[in-house]
C-alpha cells in the first residue's frame, strides 16, 4: 500500500511541476494534465483498496486514512469535472493539495500499523463515512476554484492583471464551477447524512450532528447564491471559509 501512496505522491508532485513550468511557457497540455490526474487517482484507489482489504471495512478509521480518502476524492472530482473549458487549470492547485495530503499520510504514526480487522460491519455507517468524505472532495475542489477566483479578482480589482491571472479561467467560468462543485458535493453529502441517520449512530451522534450542521451551512450558501444572488468574492470567501471550518470541526470530533 505504501508503494501506491509513494507513486501517487510522485505523480502529483510531477503534475504540479509540469503544470506550473508549462504555465510559464504557455499553457499546460490538457491531455498530459489529465493522464497525470488519472494515474494519481488510480494509484490512490489501489492504496485505498489495499488498506480496505487489511481493515476488512471502509478504510476511514485513523487520521492517515482520512487524508488518503480526501486525496482520493479530490483527485476523483478533478478527473470528473476538470475537463470543462479551461478549468483544467484547476490541476495547478489540485495536484499540490493532493501531494500535501499524501505527504501527511506518510508521516509515521498517522496510518495505524497492522490495524485490526473489523469484526462487525454496518454498511450504512460505512456508506455514511465514505460518501461524506467523497463529498468533501467536491467541496474541497470548490474551495480551490474559489482560491483561483480570488487570485484573479485581486489582480482585476487592482487594475493590473499579471501573467498568471491572464491565464486563469474567466471570472464567470470560475464562479459557475464553484457553484457546480458545491452542488455536487452537497448532493453526495446528503446521501451520506441519510446513510448516517439510517445507521442510527449511537456512539457517533455528535459527529452526525456536526455533519448535519455542515450540510445546512452549505445548503444555505447555495440557496442564497442561486436565489438572492451574492457578489462573487463573498461567494468564494464563504466557500473557502466553510470548507476550512468543516475540516477543522471533523479533525476534532
Amino acid at each position, binding site marked *: 500500500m505504501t508503494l501506491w501512496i509513494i507513486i501517487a505522491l510522485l505523480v502529483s508532485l510531477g503534475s504540479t511541476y509540469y503544470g506550473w513550468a508549462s504555465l510559464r511557457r*504557455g499553457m499546460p497540455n490538457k491531455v498530459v494534465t489529465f493522464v497525470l490526474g488519472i494515474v494519481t487517482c488510480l494509484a490512490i484507489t489501489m492504496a485505498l483498496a489495499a488498506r480496505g482489504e487489511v481493515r476488512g471495512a471502509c478504510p476511514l478509521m485513523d487520521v492517515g486514512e482520512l487524508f488518503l480518502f480526501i486525496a482520493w476524492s479530490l483527485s476523483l472530482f478533478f478527473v470528473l469535472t476538470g475537463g470543462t*473549458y479551461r478549468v483544467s487549470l484547476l490541476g495547478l492547485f489540485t495536484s499540490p493539495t493532493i501531494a500535501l495530503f499524501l505527504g501527511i499520510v506518510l508521516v509515521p504514526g498517522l496510518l495505524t500499523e497492522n490495524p485490526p480487522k473489523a469484526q462487525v460491519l454496518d454498511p450504512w455507517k460505512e456508506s455514511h463515512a465514505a460518501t461524506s468524505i467523497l463529498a468533501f472532495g467536491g467541496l474541497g475542489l470548490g474551495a480551490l476554484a474559489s482560491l483561483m477566483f480570488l487570485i*484573479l479578482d485581486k489582480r*482585476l*480589482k487592482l*487594475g*493590473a*492583471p499579471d*501573467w498568471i*491571472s*491572464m491565464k486563469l*479561467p*474567466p*471570472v*464567470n*467560468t470560475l464562479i459557475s464551477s464553484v457553484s457546480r462543485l458545491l452542488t455536487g458535493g452537497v448532493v453526495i453529502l446528503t446521501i451520506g447524512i441519510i446513510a448516517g441517520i439510517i445507521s442510527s449512530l449511537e456512539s457517533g451522534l455528535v459527529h452526525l450532528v456536526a455533519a448535519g450542521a455542515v450540510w445546512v451551512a452549505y445548503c444555505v450558501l447555495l440557496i442564497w447564491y442561486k436565489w*438572492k*444572488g*451574492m*457578489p*462573487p*468574492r*463573498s461567494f468564494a470567501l464563504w466557500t473557502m471559509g466553510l470548507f476550512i471550518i468543516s475540516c477543522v470541526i471533523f479533525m476534532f470530533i
Partner: protein
Amino acid sequence: MELACIGLNYSTAPLELREKVAVAKADLGARSKALLNVPGVQESLVLSTCNRTEYYMAADVAERAIEEMYGVFAESAEGVLVPKDHLYTESKIDTVRHLCRVCAGLDSMVLGETEIFGQVKDAYRQAQEFGVTSKGLNKLFQKAFSVGKKVRTHTKIQEGNISTGSVAVDLAQKIFGNLRDTNILVIGAGEISRVTAQSLKSRGANSIHVANRSFDKAVDLAQEFGGTALHFDAWEDVLLQTDVIISSTGAPHFVVSPEQIERVRKQRKYRPLFLIDLAVPRDIDPACNDFEEVYLFDIDSLEYQAAENRASRQKEIERCEEIIEEEIAKVKFLGV
C-alpha cells in the same frame, strides 16, 4: 543562382513614399512577373503591405540584381526618385534571415502582429499563380512560413494585446468568458468608444446601447453596430441588463456614480459589471470599484496593461532570433 531582396518599410521610408511604391493586392502577381524582365533575375516575388514593399529574387548574381532593382523601385514611385537611403537590401543568407523575421512579425511596426503572415502567404500564392517562383524562392518561402509558425508557437511574441481597445476586450473576456451573452452600454459617441465597442462587437457581444448628449450621433453609432440609441439621461434604464459600460464623454464631472450602481446591484443579483473609463477627465467615479462585482479600468490602467504586453514581447525577441538561426542553419539555400 543567389537569393536577394530589396525594399523599404515603415522604419526606412515615410508614408508618402511608401504609398507611392505600394502595389495593389490584386496586382502583386503581375508585378512579380514584370520583375523577370530585369536582367539576371530568374525568379521574383513582390510583397506589398501598408508598412512595406519588398522585392524578392533568385538571380544569377545577387548584387547585380539589386543594383538593377534600384531603378525599378524609382520607376514604381510615379516618377519620384526613391533615395537609396530609404531602401534596404539583403542578399544570400541574409535574405532568408530577413524573410523569417518578417514572417515571425519581428520586423513589423506592431511587434509580433499576425496579419503579416497572411499577407506574405497571399503574395506567395499570387506569385505561384503567375509561375514566377521556382526551386529557389519556393524553398525560401516555405522555410520562412515554417519558421514563422514555430517562432509564434514556441515564444510569447504574439501574446497579450498592445492597443488599449484590444486590452479592454481581453479583460472583458477575462471576466465574462464568451462575450456572446454580454450587453454593452456606450456612453459618449466619441472615436475611442466607437473603436472599443467595435472590438467587443467583433468578438461576439450580444447587444449595444449608445447614449450621447447629441442624440443624432448616438443614432449614427448605434446604427453602425445594429444597436439601440438612447437619450443621454436614459442610460440608467438599461443598467440592469448591462454587463460592460464604455464611457468617454467630455463631461468635466463624473457621469457614472456609485449611487447609480448601488440602485441596481440587488436586482442584477450582483452579476459582474465591467466599467471602461476612456475619458480624461474621468467619467466614472473610482469609488464604483469598491463594489465587489465591479471591475473598473481607466485609460491609465489599460495603457499600463498594453505597455506591459509590449515589454513582454520585446523580451521575447532574443529567443525568436535564436529559433530563426537554428532553423536556417538546418537548410541549404540557393547560392548560400
